[in-house]
């Protein structure tokens, strides 16, 4: 395997791309007990339209998440139990643009890695087990309906996006998951879980060559169909509507404001634009900004306030979220402050301080194995080696941040999603 050194971070990664296309990355961490592995596909809830070996497929909403649940099934076996017996904990999550399976252990690493690779590469679905899962996921959908932070985000996406599938809930609905059959799952598994669309990332005191050898062995007979995922959506720059309000059992009004950005693109340029967006959020409403202090002192925001840049293929947005008795006033203040920053420019000293601060935060997050695995995988699918972040951060120019604010933080690109407390019944 090829060893890459990152002296700035005091880190190294062993990289390889197997002949079948699977990427393997190992970050050695001597002196730690924990060992963690992420096995990830670059397919998430967005990717339900694709062509495979020349045939077009449109899968029901929620299929990626459903598949994630079902890969834990193996005939006559209890996978969580097997991990448990090895002293490991296993879990998985489905995002908009990736699905990850991971475990953390302190002993029996090889057996755990074998089990993880086996479980994800050997699908097994029956009508009966699909039927049972519809009940469990139905409960998960119900639980989400009572979660205000999920509702507020899903409302915001519906208000902002006309075409992009980020407007669909990751879990799907009770109706759409009812359309899922074993055949749908087998087709999607073949399309999404082909090796060239996946990465295996390991962090811990492990032997990189052993990891590579096992990955090679376990993916030897994986099928490698020709797949094109649909990732281009004709999305206008304007939002569908500028506000959406719901009511729920919450204590105070909650809000999320979104500003629609143009898609960032892939590779180093895409990441540069992402960091520009990140710093723009800090300059505009970060904790050391003029605006944050003013809104905080006026009681319009509280410590729950925060925001940043979010991006998945085909879309990017700047969001801010929190609790406030007057969300409209927060939105208006953000718009005005952006105008002011664009007119007056950003003080260079201020800008350097923010860069140093965000850089320090990213360096500290490397102490978390979870965060390291997650970011290496997520950025891999954007075509970027995550541990190069210090260089990219340092190259960000304040002028680019200013242009970003001028282009993005405008009322045409803005939507506001609010959850009001239910009126008390008299």
């Amino acid at each position: 395997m090829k060893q890459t050194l990152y002296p700035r971070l005091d880190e190294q990664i062993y990289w390889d791309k197997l002949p079948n296309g699977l990427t393997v990355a190992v970050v050695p961490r001597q002196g730690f007990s924990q060992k963690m592995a992420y096995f990830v596909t670059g397919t998430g809830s967005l990717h339900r339209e694709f062509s495979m070996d020349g045939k077009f497929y449109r899968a029901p909403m929620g299929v990626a998440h459903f598949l994630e649940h079902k890969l834990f099934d193996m005939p006559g076996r209890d996978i969580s139990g097997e991990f448990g017996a090895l002293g490991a904990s296993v879990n998985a999550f489905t995002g908009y643009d990736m699905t990850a399976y991971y475990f953390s252990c302190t002993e029996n690493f090889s057996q755990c890695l074998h089990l993880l690779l086996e479980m994800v590469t050997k699908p097994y679905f029956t009508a009966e087990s699909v039927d049972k899962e519809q009940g469990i996921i139905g409960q998960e959908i119900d639980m989400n309906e009572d979660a205000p932070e999920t509702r507020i985000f899903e409302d915001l996406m519906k208000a902002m996006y006309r075409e992009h599938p980020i407007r669909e809930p990751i879990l799907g609905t009770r109706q759409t998951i009812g359309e899922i059959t074993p055949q749908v799952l087998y087709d999607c598994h073949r399309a999404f879980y082909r090796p060239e669309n996946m990465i295996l990332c390991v962090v811990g005191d492990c032997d990189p060559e052993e990891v590579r050898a096992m990955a090679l062995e376990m993916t030897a007979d994986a099928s490698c169909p020709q797949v094109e995922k649909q990732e281009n959506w004709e999305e206008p720059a304007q939002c569908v509507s500028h506000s959406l309000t719901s009511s729920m059992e919450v204590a105070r009004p909650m809000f999320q404001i979104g500003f629609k950005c143009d898609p960032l693109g892939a590779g180093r340029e895409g990441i540069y634009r992402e960091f520009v967006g990140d710093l723009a959020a800090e300059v505009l409403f970060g904790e050391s900004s003029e605006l944050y202090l003013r809104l905080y002192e006026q009681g319009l925001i509280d410590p729950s306030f925060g925001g940043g840049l979010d991006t998945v293929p085909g879309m990017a947005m700047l969001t801010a979220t929190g609790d406030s008795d007057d969300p409209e006033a927060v939105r208006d203040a953000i718009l005005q402050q952006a105008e002011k920053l664009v007119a007056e420019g950003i003080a260079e000293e201020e800008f350097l301080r923010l860069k140093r601060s965000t850089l320090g935060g990213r360096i500290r997050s490397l102490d978390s194995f979870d965060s390291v695995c997650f970011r290496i995988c997520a950025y891999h699918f954007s075509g970027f080696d995550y541990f190069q972040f210090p260089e990219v951060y340092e190259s960000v120019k304040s002028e680019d941040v200013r242009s970003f604010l001028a282009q993005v933080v405008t009322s045409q690109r803005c939507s506001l999603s609010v959850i009001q407390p239910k009126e008390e019944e008299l």
Partner: protein
Amino acid sequence: MIQILQLQPGIYLRGCTDTRFKTNCLSIQFVRSMDRQEAAANALMSAVLLRGTEKYPDIRDITRHMDDLYGATVGSLVRRVGDYQTTGVYCSFTEDRYALGGDRILEPVTAFLQELLLHPRLEKGVFCESFVEGEKRNLLSAIESQKNDKRIYAAAQLMKYMCAQDPAGIPRLGEPEQARALEPGMLYDHYQKVLKHSRIDLFYVGSRPLEQIAQLISPIFSQLERDYQPLPGQTPFRDGGKTRNEQKMDVTQARLQMGFLTESTVNTPDFVPMQVLNTVLGGGMTGKLFMNIREKQSLCYDIGSSYQGGKGIMTVGAGMDCKMVDRVERSVMQELENCCNGIITPLELESAQSAMLSSLRQIHDTPGSIENFYSTGALSGMELSISEYMHQVQQVTVERLAEIAAKVQLHSVFVLKGEQV
């Protein structure tokens, strides 16, 4: 591995020197008895301190200073450990060797802590009214927002009813009425009292020797006029009687929260076996509750149990369809009954043991988990070392678990249900 230095009577610095991390941490906790009258004041205190100091008069100045220190964070930390409530700050900052051009981070961070604790921004000799009013609003909002997360809300409601006569029933952030009544003068006087009389626990994880930290941090406390008043010991559960409550809310999914009394606490020899029993029953995805009630019967989406060794209370929480509440409750009782009858497979026991051993081994893998384990351990009276703890986990047998399970009694139940049922 963990060193303890006494800086003054009632002021302890604990910690470890570890060069593996990019993050360092330093926490300062004032330890108080959990008391209905002052819980809200304790929760409010550090938030008010973090609003401004003489040198850094508002949050923007503070945050800018932190940005200069590579995004160091200083946050308010309020914990409940048995009968105690701790209030203070937790700082997380980048290890000096990752700073540019030989910049220092640790020294300025400790200097800032001194400024924060000893030189708060005052007006008319007490805390600024606008700071107190603003933070009161935020505290009230934090207390009331617990309702937003139905899982947290149901768990808190159960504790309120089950522990009506015990300090464990006092909410960690205090009661809204107490928070509303706080005024700048009262709060400032309270803070002075806290500085003077409280036990103070400090904790450090980073690359420097602990003696060096003691030197950096001691000046903060040598300036105080101290009259240390030791805390009363932790007390056993004070039972106010069994309760059963149901509340209606506009929710899609019902929440069931069950509270059990055990005879095992941190001070009894079966503390570790009880932890194992809790893990066998409801710890994660290999517990009996998850495997049988969720996986086999599909009755709910989430279900699990937790055990508080201070009071010997075990709770089970689950989310499910409103019509299924009774069935889930019966199934939970059945799983507990199975434990009493020794119906625990070797795999169930091994999985629980391995999971616990694995978490214990990982404590030393992050600064945050080191701080949390040892600083709360020091207060709860849990005196086991990690290796002794692990040894006891390995010794547990099914027979032992059955004996302990037989003493676990259902005490109280709280149900949150939709309005249409």
